[in-house]
């Protein structure tokens, strides 16, 4: 463990491939070693400085044009090398994916968002990751590439625990894709921290689809309350197919707060997290419902 954060003491070999193929070959060559992909480095370099994470080979993917794109033609596709700040400036993200927009905006500060990537945020697999709840709520999936082939995995299934994902040593994520949002859908993100730039005590995203006065589909995803961001599935099932009212929203908020299993840590306590989860779910389902164009009766 290094306590001097002024330097990076550990030694490693560095690569900056210019094509995707080159990057995949490097990953394949060094799959049996401690090899890591470097994108923004805002999490990785901190870990290299402050933990005993050992790296032999570092592959910088930021110079690969194939990973540096945002495609808004149908749904939303974002390459692995795109910095977070470039995503928040896309008009469609603000309009059609407000929960993702709000999640990104809530992260750290502009310098960190100019460096860090959305795919990096997923791969870091922190339970407090601010893009993950909205990505799960939108049903986003990542595309994994390797010399062996490719596969697609839902973000919901990709992260398995604290810092744990299903990515193999020779794989890299090329892009993340979000489905096209329906007209009558609404979504929102919210987070509690002491100050804005903080790591979340708790964060939450809601995405729902409206049909008249009925809620056709709804996803409620909470972060920082378990080993990974989790869906409040019992609460979701209470609202699906129902006429949405204030009393129903109060009921599902209570249910959602009973479903989560938060812990006491330096950032917050179990009691606080449980209570604030109820308040936040109530507020956010209401906002998402109103954004979908729905009216609210008592």
């Amino acid at each position, binding site marked *: 463990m290094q306590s*001097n954060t002024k330097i990076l003491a550990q*030694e490693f070999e*560095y690569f900056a491939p210019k094509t995707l193929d080159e990057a995949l070959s490097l990953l394949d060559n060094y799959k049996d070693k401690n090899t890591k992909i470097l994108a923004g*480095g*805002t999490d990785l370099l901190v870990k290299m400085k402050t933990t005993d994470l050992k790296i032999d080979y*570092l592959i*910088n993917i930021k110079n690969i044009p194939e990973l540096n794109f945002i495609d808004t033609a149908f749904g939303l596709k974002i390459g692995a090398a795109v910095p977070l700040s470039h995503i928040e400036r896309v008009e469609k993200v603000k309009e059609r994916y407000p929960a993702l927009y709000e999640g990104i905006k809530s992260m750290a500060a502009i*310098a960190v968002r100019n460096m860090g990537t959305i795919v990096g945020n997923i791969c870091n697999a922190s339970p407090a990751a601010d893009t993950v709840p909205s990505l799960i709520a939108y049903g986003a999936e990542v595309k994994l590439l390797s010399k062996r082939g490719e596969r697609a995995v839902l973000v919901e299934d990709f992260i398995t625990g604290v810092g744990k994902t299903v990515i193999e040593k020779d794989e890299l994520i090329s892009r993340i894709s979000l489905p096209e949002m329906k007209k009558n859908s609404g979504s929102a993100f919210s987070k509690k921290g002491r100050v804005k730039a903080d790591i979340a005590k708790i964060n939450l995203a809601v995405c729902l689809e409206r049909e008249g006065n009925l809620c056709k589909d709804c996803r409620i995803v909470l972060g920082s309350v378990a080993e990974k961001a989790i869906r409040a599935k019992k609460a979701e099932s209470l609202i699906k197919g129902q006429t949405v009212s204030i009393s129903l929203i109060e009921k599902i908020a209570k249910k959602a707060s009973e479903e989560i299993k938060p812990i006491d840590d330096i950032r917050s306590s179990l009691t606080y997290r449980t209570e604030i989860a109820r308040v936040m779910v109530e507020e956010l389902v209401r906002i998402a419902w109103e954004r979908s164009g729905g009216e609210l009766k008592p």
Partner: protein
Amino acid sequence: MKKLVIEFTINQQKRRLFVKPNDLLINIIRNDLFLTGSKYSCGIGECGACTVLLDGEPVLSCLTLAATVDGKEITTIEGLAKGNELHPMQISFLKNAAVQCGFCTPSMILTATALLKENPNPTEDEIRDYIRGNICRCTGYVQIVKAIKSCAIEQNS
């Protein structure tokens, strides 16, 4: 550890350097190029004191490997003034007494110039939000926000 050759532009000057893969940009800027305006403080991306502009965008030089700036353009606080003529943001910081110990000032000014490029007429809330990653521990933020606001007003008039 094998050294790498990197070429980049810093404050409009082309540079060619040999760096180690684990060299941090902040140390190259301060120790090799003697540009000591950028400060090392927390080293983990919390304080913003090491902020430099990379292709015009604020980034943290303490979390950037020097090897990764190959082919890029960097601006540090030393590159803002044109000869003896200070940048309008620097003048505004002086006029509004937005400097006390000066440690956060280079990063604060660089971040502020990036803000005005992105949003030429920011509200007070937008200013405070944009500089939230740049921590000042002496003046408080009132004069800093005022300096950025008045620089924007002056630029727009």
